[in-house]
């Protein structure tokens, strides 16, 4: 652009490459971060974003290429050194000490001490408050961390980083675990810090967010930089196209299944404090959405249907027959499957291989003549890996080595092998890139076409509207509305979601 204005580059990567056994994670990547800006990194899972970050924060060393911070080429590659030159990373999953105060969290491990080694409490609180005020925030240093929202905790984490002189802050998908309102707060705070010369590298999958917060956007694909443009010079579709490497005319596939007879009837599900009187139907070939705000009770109801958690009242009728589901194995036997919203915690055994994870729900089937058939297991696993387009070096790789989207596909593969009749998917596309999202929607449509019923819990309205035939809206543990056809729009759903204003 304008050559005359000399840019103030705070961080620069030049021709960086990094390989792991079996994959070239980064291939000749270059990019620059200007002081006081937010540089968004976009790309599908496995595109190389996390590798890039780990090179910047010193966890990995690049095979080739240089990392330059404020004009100095970094030669010592370890996390402590990178911290000392001002790089801080705010991870997706925060780990604040909830029962300590804001100030204690900020100064954790670095508390001001007297000569005898005891903590100077007053100085610590004063310093913390001064720091918070100085940055223009409104937090009380004495407040308990537990009483803060997730976005506030993210800000505290940033303040903590700044307290040790961080200049470049890497935020790994900060918006994936917070509500839309919180995202707005977070963005506001980031803008404040930007104005004070702090630079951000911001990873996000959400297109809207790039517009809202980004100054520059760099798209990575297959370990290469595809483009690097000022936000505003590039439109949403272009970013998506570049991320997936093909035109994305259709973000949502169409459910072409013929909706058949009633498959499932949930009657009057209740558990004190969580949900009450929840009843609904699901038909064969139907994709039913469950919308609502976080904490509306959707997950709780579905877990209870699956038998993972208890219920106090309510029955499940499957094709006219009452089921007695007391635990997950009962539900699975009946063909009712629940895909947890937390794939790491409840989906996969990360230390075991891809094939073992895929086989895990189906071991009976492979147990032939007293032995687990490795042949059958390998055949099914390979077939699933190909069918769902899971990117993995081999089926012997441990599940923990795969990226988020591919891990999600593994969990889905595990359940598809059980040929579910009713598949409840809880936030199946959270934290997953556009390409993989499409593939997951496609799987849902395929299931519907085969006559199964699909329930999708989602907090993202566009995907509910785009994929589902009908949607239930929950609020405060109750079903407050049901929408379909023309009625299925953001406004209507939100009205029900905030408590049903009809």
């Amino acid at each position: 652009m304008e050559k005359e204005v000399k840019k103030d580059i705070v961080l620069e990567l030049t021709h960086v490459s990094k390989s792991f056994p079996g994959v070239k994670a980064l291939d000749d990547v270059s990019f620059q971060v200007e002081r006081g800006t937010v540089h968004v990194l976009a790309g599908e899972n496995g595109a190389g974003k996390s590798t890039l970050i780990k090179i910047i924060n010193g966890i990995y060393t690049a095979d080739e290429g240089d990392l330059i911070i404020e004009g100095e080429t970094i030669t010592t590659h370890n996390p402590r050194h990178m911290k000392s030159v001002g790089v801080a990373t705010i991870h997706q999953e925060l780990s604040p000490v909830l029962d300590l105060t804001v100030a204690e969290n900020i100064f954790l491990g670095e508390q001001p001490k007297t000569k005898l080694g005891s903590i100077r409490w007053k100085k610590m609180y004063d310093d913390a408050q001064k720091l918070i005020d100085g940055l223009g925030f409104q937090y009380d240093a004495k407040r308990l961390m537990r009483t803060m929202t997730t976005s506030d905790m993210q800000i505290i984490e940033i303040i903590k980083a700044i307290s040790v002189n961080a200049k470049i802050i890497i935020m790994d998908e900060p918006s994936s675990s917070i509500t839309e309102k919180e995202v707005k707060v977070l963005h506001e705070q980031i803008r404040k810090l930007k104005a004070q010369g702090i630079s951000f590298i911001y990873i996000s999958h959400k297109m809207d967010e790039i517009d809202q917060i980004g100054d520059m956007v760099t798209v990575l694909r297959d370990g290469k930089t595809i483009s690097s443009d000022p936000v505003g010079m590039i439109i949403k579709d272009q970013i998506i196209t570049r991320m997936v490497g093909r035109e994305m005319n259709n973000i949502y596939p169409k459910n072409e299944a013929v909706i058949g007879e009633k498959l499932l009837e949930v009657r009057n599900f209740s558990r004190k404090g969580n949900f009450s009187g929840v009843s609904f139907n699901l038909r064969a070939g139907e994709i039913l959405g469950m919308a609502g705000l976080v904490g509306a009770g959707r997950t709780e109801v579905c877990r209870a249907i699956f038998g993972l958690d208890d219920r106090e009242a309510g029955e499940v009728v499957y094709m006219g027959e009452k089921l007695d589901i007391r635990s997950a194995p009962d539900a699975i036997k009946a063909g009712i499957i629940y895909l947890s919203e937390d794939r790491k915690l409840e989906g996969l055994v990360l230390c075991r291989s891809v094939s073992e994870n895929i086989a895990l729900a189906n071991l009976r089937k492979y147990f032939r003549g007293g032995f687990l058939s490795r042949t059958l297991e390998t055949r099914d696993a390979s077939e699933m890996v190909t069918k769902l387009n899971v990117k993995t070096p081999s089926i012997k790789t441990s599940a923990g080595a795969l990226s988020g989207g591919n891990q999600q596909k593994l969990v889905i593969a595990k359940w598809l092998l059980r040929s579910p009749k009713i598949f409840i998917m809880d936030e199946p596309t959270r934290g997953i890139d556009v390409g993989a999202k499409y593939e997951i929607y496609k799987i849902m449509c395929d299931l519907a076409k085969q006559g199964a019923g699909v329930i999708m819990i989602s907090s993202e309205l566009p995907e509910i509207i785009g994929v589902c035939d009908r949607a239930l809206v929950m609020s405060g543990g109750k079903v407050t509305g049901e929408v379909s056809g023309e009625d299925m729009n953001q406004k209507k759903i939100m009205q029900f979601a905030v408590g049903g204003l009809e």
Partner: protein
Amino acid sequence: MMGKEKTKFNLSEFYSKFGIILILLFMVTIFSLANRKFISANNIRNVIRQVVVITILACGEQLMLISGMVDLSAGTVMAFGGTLSAYCVFATQNVPLAILVGLAGGLFFGVINGALITIFSIPAFIGTLASMKMASGAIMWYTNGKNKSNLDDAYTWLGQGYIGPIPVPVIIMAIALLITYYVLAWTPVGRNIYAVGGNLQAAKATGIRVRNTQFFACVFSGLCAGLAGIVLMARLNSGQPSTGQAGMEMDAITAVIVGGTSMSGGVGAIQNTIIGSLIIGIIKNFMNLQNIHSSIQDIVLGILICVAVIIDVQVRRSKV
């Protein structure tokens, strides 16, 4: 691009596959050079005989550790089952009955452990600690701490006899190892054990009956302890309740960990545990040959545990 990278030599992967065997070979080489007696056929047979009891206990601990638990009671349950079995053969001369009694003694505490852990949700560490005390107290009370020696020949054959050139206890150990290998590698319950140890929440959400799986591991460990007790008493030609105080469960746990099984569960293989058990066996044997004081031996074994776990942690870290 992919194929080229694959041929690249990967140290940590190589280590996790073959490292422990190399360490064993290395030790055997060094020890043989240092002491001629070490490599004699007689001594080798000695080593193997010495590791038999520990290895059988280790079979049970293997399942416990992989599923994320630990069995502290294995040593005293071994003494409990073994001594009952020896007393039984002394009184009745009925060897099959004595074997059944020994196994039943192990099974009994396996069931108690299983119940404590799965029904009452007590952590394995505490539950098996309680059983350890109970088994030890029970057998000391029953026997008044007295040994019963001169057992039936058919019984001592289990600990001292030979089939061809192979000692009978070694054959029993081999059978225990084979069963453990079969369970872990070739049955659904084995896979479930890995899954429960690797990620209990995920196992539960996948419809694995977590409690049944844990119960199975406890019972299996109890049975192994009973079997180890029978073999031990048969070798000693006497029922010795005090063998429970020797802390053999700790040696067994050490063997499993030296063999690369993670204390946090989900990872491990019985093949490596055999090597772990042999490594401990030859180190002990070598130190005995060199007349090293038993206190020093303990220090060396302590260091060995540290080294094994440090290597394990490093390998795991470099993998991520």
